[in-house]
Every structure is written in structure tokens, then in C-alpha cells.
């Protein structure tokens, strides 16, 4: 039986002689909610891009549900739902047409599509504006559409880059509930975020990346056992600079 949903082996990527991701190893079991944390430019998004096949790693392997993204990309892509960092929407398609496009490329049956799309539009409060072009949508609406597109095929792995960014608090709660329900059914959730306080009660496992290197992994339950919070653990890994000198401000 397959226990590992996401397996990264010595994943490395270099841009212009700068090592962005360095020998990254990760093993995430099926049904886990994993938070991939780190500051801006640490290599989170690049890792995600390599995981989903948007960027080719210099070396190393990405195995999703036991299949390699490099050698069998189509099979892997049919099992994953992704919210990329720039959301990847087509400007001149409406919200409704985006969902229709996903139905077509993921070969979702008509009955299932109707049920799921209605529920997703309702969940993300997009049903009134479903005729709106993506180019005219606000950042929050684009994010919600991108999330709906990732959830629509009911994938076995959800890979979400900053899913809570741009969402209002109520929407964050609803999304967390939906993701928890999916995880309970066996879907693996891999997400990145900067909002530590809002995910500390939600994620089960975490990894902290700094300058392309994975510096800490663990589970929230272990932290709780040690009397630590996610924020404490995160701050320990980084030097917090002194207050910026902005005497002129104000």
C-alpha cells in the first residue's frame, strides 16, 4: 500500500549560478496537511514549480503518488490540483468558462461537474459574478477562482501556493474546513504560507526552508508536546533584525 504521497529526493535548482533549492528531501504521507514555510525568496515557490512540472530541477526526483513528474508528467498532472503563485488564469475567460475548461481538460463527467461547480461557486461566493472576465476580477476573486479550479477535479494531491493570501477571514475558515474534510478522505494537502498564526491550528506537519535549504521539519503535535508554538519555532530559525531606521516616517 502506498504511504508516501509526496516524495522529494535531493531536489536542486540553480538560477544564474545561485542555488535556489539545495538538495531538498521531503516525505509526506497520504492524507497529511503539510505547511511549507519560509521567508520571501527562500525557494518555496520554486520547489512547488518543480513539484508540478512547471520548472525542471537540475537534479533530484519528484515522486507524487509514487509516479515521477519527470518521466510520467501527464499521469501525475491528472492527480494534482494546483494553485500556482501567479494563479495562471486566462484574462479573457469568465469564471464560469475557467471551470468549464478544467472540466474538459480533466475529463470530468457532466453530472459530477454540475454538482461540484455549483457547490464550489457557492463556497467561494462566486456564483453571482460567474460571468465576469478574469481580467476584471479583484485579487481575492482570482485567488478564489484559482482555488475552485484546483479543487474541481477532486485531486489526490492539492498543492497550494499561498492559498490564504487575499481571502477574507470567513473565507479562510471555510477553506480550511473544506481542506480538512478532503484530507480526512485521503487527499494530501501541501501549502505554503506566511500567515503562521492562521495555519498553526490547521496544518499537521511543517517544513521550514531558508535560502533553499530545508532547516527544520516536524509536526504540530510534537511542538505542542514540547510547549512550543509554530511561530516560536519559525522565529528561532531566523535572525529578527532590529527595528528599521525610519526616523523620518511620520
Amino acid at each position, binding site marked *: 500500500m502506498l504511504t508516501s504521497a509526496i516524495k522529494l529526493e535531493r531536489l536542486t535548482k540553480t538560477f544564474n549560478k545561485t542555488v535556489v533549492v539545495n538538495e531538498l528531501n521531503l516525505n509526506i504521507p497520504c492524507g497529511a496537511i503539510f505547511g511549507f514555510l519560509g521567508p520571501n525568496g527562500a525557494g518555496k515557490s520554486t520547489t512547488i514549480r518543480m513539484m508540478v512540472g*512547471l520548472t*525542471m530541477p537540475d537534479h533530484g526526483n519528484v515522486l507524487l503518488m509514487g509516479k515521477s513528474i519527470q518521466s510520467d508528467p*501527464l499521469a501525475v498532472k*491528472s492527480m494534482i490540483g494546483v494553485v500556482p503563485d501567479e494563479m495562471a488564469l486566462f484574462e479573457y475567460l469568465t469564471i*464560469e468558462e475557467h471551470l468549464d475548461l478544467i472540466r474538459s481538460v480533466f475529463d470530468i463527467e457532466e453530472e459530477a461537474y454540475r454538482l461540484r461547480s455549483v457547490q464550489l*461557486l457557492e463556497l467561494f461566493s462566486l456564483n453571482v459574478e*460567474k*460571468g465576469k*472576465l478574469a481580467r476584471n476580477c479583484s485579487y481575492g476573486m482570482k485567488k478564489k477562482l484559482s482555488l475552485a479550479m484546483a479543487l474541481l477535479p477532486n485531486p489526490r494531491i492539492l498543492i497550494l501556493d499561498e492559498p490564504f493570501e487575499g481571502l477574507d477571514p470567513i473565507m479562510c475558515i471555510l477553506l480550511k474546513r473544506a481542506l480538512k474534510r478532503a484530507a480526512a478522505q485521503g487527499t494530501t494537502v501541501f501549502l505554503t504560507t506566511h500567515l503562521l498564526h492562521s495555519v498553526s491550528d490547521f496544518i499537521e506537519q511543517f517544513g521550514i526552508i531558508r535560502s533553499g535549504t530545508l532547516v527544520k521539519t516536524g509536526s504540530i503535535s510534537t511542538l505542542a508536546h514540547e510547549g512550543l508554538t509554530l511561530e516560536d519555532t519559525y522565529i528561532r530559525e531566523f535572525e529578527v533584525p532590529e527595528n528599521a531606521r525610519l526616523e523620518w516616517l511620520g
Partner: protein
Amino acid sequence: MARLKPILRYARMIDQRAYAIKRSSAEKGVEILIGFAIATALFRQFETIAMAPVLIRLSAARLLILELVAAWVLLPSIAPVTIPVRLLAFYPLTWKQKVVYRVASILQHWRVFAIIVLSLLSVAVLVRLPHPAVVISKAVAALVIAASVGIGCAIVLPGFRIVRDRRATNGAIPKSHKYPLLRKEIRCYLRTLDFYFALSISLFAALSEFYGNWLSPAKAIVPLLIIALLHIPAFLNPFGLEDSSQLDRYLLTPKPYSLLLATKHMALAILFLVSTLPLDVSLAYQMHFLQISTMAMETCTVVTSCLIVGISLMNKPHAQEIKMDAGKISGSNMSFLFVMQVAVLVAAIPLCEGVTTLYAGGLGNFLIPSGILCAATATYLWLLRKQTWPASRTNNSKT
């Protein structure tokens, strides 16, 4: 006026810089080819107005004025303003300064200068018609109105929008369509003005076929070639309208690259055939069945040839930089190979015509084009089958 001078200078500087970056030798080459074809057609029309019998002169004059009116109305595509309205709004300019900037930015374009000269020439040549005063006054009025509309549109329109938001509907189940990917691609291409430019050329060529006598079916290859050239940026870089984020969406789909590319090509072929339809219909009007079939096959061969040129060049980094834009071919560092391909295409036409003439009168007229079409289709399918995503598109930096 003194206050406007720095704005005019700034507008000129920005436009010159933008064009210096965008234009390359290959683009200039293509532009010269198109310009040469248009100039030849216009020369024939001026010649007809000056020399031909009165009835033909009248038809030619009407056609010429119609073309110039269309050129003025299509000004936003012919002379695109390089700085968009929303960027202009960023600067602390008064609305008068903004209007002056936009008008100056449009009028300094050489194409606009060429249209002004042609308009003046066309008005002058109308002296050759009966009742010149009446005809000239009507023509001047039409041109002034068209120029006002064109300049107004160029000032006001930040971009040419075909697709608008659908009316909001409450509670209904989202609609599903057949072939949503193909629909998306067609809509995507309909955003460009190149298609409308090609369609207008086709329409005017068709009109001249019905009402003029200067365009024989054999010469119809000239407008067909201009239309093909207008479509070439799209054939060469079918993903040219997508930014890096939208390319990501294609990369995330669990469909093979060849299928995505074939869908894009199908959308392009449909639009190519639609844009040449008026011309095809007007030519078919004068032909019998065998000739119509031959012409249809020749048109399909042109489409397939364009696709083969595109597919064989699209993996080159330079070809990926070609963007479809409003009525022009743009992109930096276009390969010289592209110009060579166009030159070969142009050179091949009389050659093919010569070979066909050898078999004129028999089934050869039908068999040769069908053989060429079959060979072209087989080549296209073979090239499509071995297509993979260009490495540069799966290996770019996050930005």
C-alpha cells in the same frame, strides 16, 4: 504652446525608444513586403482612375475612397500608441495635455503620414472623374469623418476589446460547452486586430473582384499572401498571446503538448479560412466546380504551409519572442530565417503556378494541388507528433 513642447518631445522620445527596441531587421523586411504589395495595388487603382473608361474609373475611385476610409477607421491598429492610457493617467497631466500627447503620438507615425499623403493624392486624382467638384467634396467629407473617428478611437481606446463580461446570472448551474479549449483559443485570437485587418483586406479584394476589373483570379494570390503574412506571427508563436502565468496553466493540464498545439492550430486555421472567405467566395463565383476544388485545396495548402513554417520554427527562442499585436508583427531578435522562409514562400508561388500551367486543361490542375496538400498535411502531422514543450518554457526563473 511652450508648455506643450516638452510633452511633444517626451512623446517622440518614448515612441522612438519603444520602436527601436521592438523592431528588428526581419520585421522591417516583412513590413516592406506588405508595404510593397499594398503600394502595387494602390498604384493600379490610381492608374485605373486616371486612364480607364469612365465606368471603371468610378468603381475604382469608390473602392479607393472606401479603402482610405477603412485605413482611417483602423488607425488604432495601423499606428498603435505605444504608451497606454492607464500609464498616461499615472503622470500629473491635465486632460488637454493628455489629448495633445495622444494625438502627437499618433500623428508622428510614418504610416499615418502615408495615409495623409494617399488621401490627398486620391482627392487630387478625382479631378479625372465627371463632375469633379461634387465628387471631391463628398470624398473629402467621408475622409474627414473617417479620420476623426480613427483618431478619436486611437485616443480613447486603451485596447481593442471583443470579449466583454457576460451579464451576471444568479444561482444557475454553470454552462458546459463542447470544445471549450478551442472556443478559448478562437476568442483569444479574436482579441488581435490582425484578424480584422486580414478580413478587411479580403473584403476589399472581394469587392474589387465584383465591381472592378483590376484583380483577376490569378492575381488574387497577392491579397491571399498579405493575409497569410498577417497570420504568420500567430502561426509562428501560437502561445504568443499568453504571458508566463497563462503558459503555466497549459503546462499544468494533463493533456499532451501536441494536443494543445493542435487545438491552437485548429483555431488559427478556422480564423484564416474565415478571413479569406469573402475573397474565396468572390473568386468561386467566376469558376466551375473543378477550379473551385483546386482553389479550396490551394487555400488549405497555404494554411498547412504556414503551420509547417510555424511548427518548424516555434521551438527557436527568437520565434517565442514574437507577439501578436494590433495589426503589426512585433517582437525582438526575430530570426533571419523567418524572412528567408517568407522569401521562399513568395518565390515558390510562381514556380508552383508554372508547374501547374504545364498540366493546364487536364486533371493535372486537380491532382497536383491535391498531391501537394497531402504531402503538406503529412509533414505537418509528422512535425506535430514529435513536438514537446520547449525546454526554455519549463526551465524559466520564477519571475
